């Protein structure tokens, strides 16, 4: 009984702030106090009339998209390597790919900033994307490792044995089997990148992403506009994660070749 109450309390603690944000985003008055006097969509209307906000949103979208694509490609390559490595090689690959997850975002941000300045790279969208890839790849590798451990290496040999070259084997056997996990991980990378703040703050230079814009708004005044933006971002992120989970849940990849059964 006590256990159950504890669980409910924890859930409430996690979810009530989110619910409040959603609630106040529809509040007619700009104050964050109960009782709520009326409902309106004015804050949502304001979002779409703010050009700076639009530009930040657009940038975040592109950064997240690029991050997802690059993570997907690197993840596919790393997965292929993982399948071909021995136990030692796999451990090394895992240590290299997964370690960044253990680093606090603050240190990661500082070190990426130092790296960029040492190499002489201008802080820009590019550095943001690369930093997000560094964040997303470990997550992808953890998910892929679980999937790849179930991958029967004999499948690739069977394909070769049946006359398919290495390239054809990748296209017709390996890729279809690892693609659902890879795609769902890429979608999750998108979500991760879309609302990343800590690392981005270090490597963004003059660029402003959506989370950074919200942060800068907060520093001036706490406006109810933030509630509306946050609600939209939340809905968007939940949608993305649902898509990712749905793809991952698809046990059976789509049948590659179409065939008419007489």
């Amino acid at each position, binding site marked *: 009984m006590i256990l159950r109450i504890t669980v409910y309390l924890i859930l409430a603690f996690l979810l009530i702030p989110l619910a409040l944000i959603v609630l106040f985003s529809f509040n007619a008055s700009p104050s964050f106090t109960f009782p709520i006097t009326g409902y309106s969509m004015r804050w949502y209307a304001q979002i779409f009339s703010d050009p700076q906000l639009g530009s930040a949103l657009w940038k975040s979208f592109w950064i997240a998209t690029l991050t997802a694509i690059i993570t997907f490609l690197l993840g596919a390559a790393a997965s292929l390597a993982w399948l071909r490595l021995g136990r030692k090689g796999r451990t090394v690959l895992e240590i290299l790919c997964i370690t960044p997850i253990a680093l606090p975002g603050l240190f990661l941000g500082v070190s990426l900033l130092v790296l960029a300045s040492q190499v002489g790279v201008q802080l820009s969208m590019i550095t943001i994307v690369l930093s997000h890839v560094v964040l997303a790849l470990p997550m992808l590798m953890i998910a892929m490792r679980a999937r790849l451990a179930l991958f*029967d290496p*004999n*499948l690739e*040999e*069977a*394909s*070769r*044995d*049946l*006359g*398919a*070259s290495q390239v*054809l084997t990748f296209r*017709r*056997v390996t890729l*279809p*089997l690892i693609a659902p996990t890879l795609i769902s991980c890429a979608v999750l990378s998108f979500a991760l990148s879309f609302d990343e703040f800590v690392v981005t703050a270090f490597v963004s230079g003059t660029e402003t992403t959506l989370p950074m814009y919200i942060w800068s708004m907060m520093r001036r005044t706490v406006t109810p506009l933030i509630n509306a933006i946050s609600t939209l971002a939340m809905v968007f992120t939940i949608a993305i994660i649902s898509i990712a989970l749905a793809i991952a849940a698809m*046990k*059976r*990849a*789509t*049948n*590659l*070749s179409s*065939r008419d*059964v*007489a």
Partner: protein
Amino acid sequence: MSPIIEITDGNKAFGSFKALQDINLSIAQGEIVTLLGPSGCGKTTLMRIFAGFESLTSGSLKIDGKDVSNLPPEKRPVNMVFQRYALFPHLDVFENVAYGLKVKGIGKDEVRERVRNMLRIVQMDHLQQRFITELSGGQCQRVALARALVNGPKVLLLDEPLAALDLKIRQHMLTEMKRIHAETGATFIYVTHDQDEAMILSDRVVLIDRGQIVQVDTPQDMYNRPNCLFSAKFLGETNILHGTIVEDASGKSAFRSAEGSFHYQPTNQIASKSAAIMSVRPEAISLFAENPARDNAIPATVTDVLFTGSRSFYHLVSDGGEALRAQVQNTPGLNRPNVGDRVHVCWPHDGSVVLPASPSH
């Protein structure tokens, strides 16, 4: 007829580990040959060399008269059935079987025709559109066979294909395998560590131990005339006596051990006075309540009786302290000895095989 597979002076090393040594073997078109041996003996490595997944460190391998040392697996006229089937989980039964034909670019109609025909042979034509995850172990086995055989391989390689099945299905699949072999006429090379599978299925058995071929023979010959202690013990059960070869008064060779002198029909040339072992199969042994006054009879005591219906297995200890096993047919009305009874253990001259005592294996 020229052999379909011929391996000459084959050696395979993984680093300093010699997986296969001095392999010489030729297999004729249409044969079922089993590579038999304990796990880790190199039989699977040999099969993977045939398939092209491993290459010989030295020696030559010819398939159908052509040297295939430099051919990748996809260019060899062989197909393999994997131990855990390795069926493609993202394809259905039809697509699995069609895979080999499709990657070779064979026309749609021919693919359909050949796949259907092969599925009929393995009796899976009613489950064409099932996904692999929806099949039982025995059904997976049939699909794996069809997927390999549909390509019309010169040689079908089977890597312990029944190991993952339970006993009942395994026995049924053995008969099926023989039928499918007869229907397709392909050469089968079958890897197993199971002596029963090897004896039931094969035209010839290749017995391998620690990377070397020990004996190549028909199952009957290998069972009845093992050429070394390893062969005698690996195929079936046997009683091993240690002793020396002597010449008796009449100049005939005899085997003398602590139990006494035994006569035998020489199958191997063993010099007189040299150490030897005698292998006596349990089913060659007869038990007598009284001394039968024959050659090769020694007194013993029954220590255990295992009744299995048609046969009983007797555990005995000879007066000389040797543990022996006998297998006796349970003929109705026969008086059977019980635990603790004194009996005479006896076997005919041709019921034993005498082998050199210091065999290479």
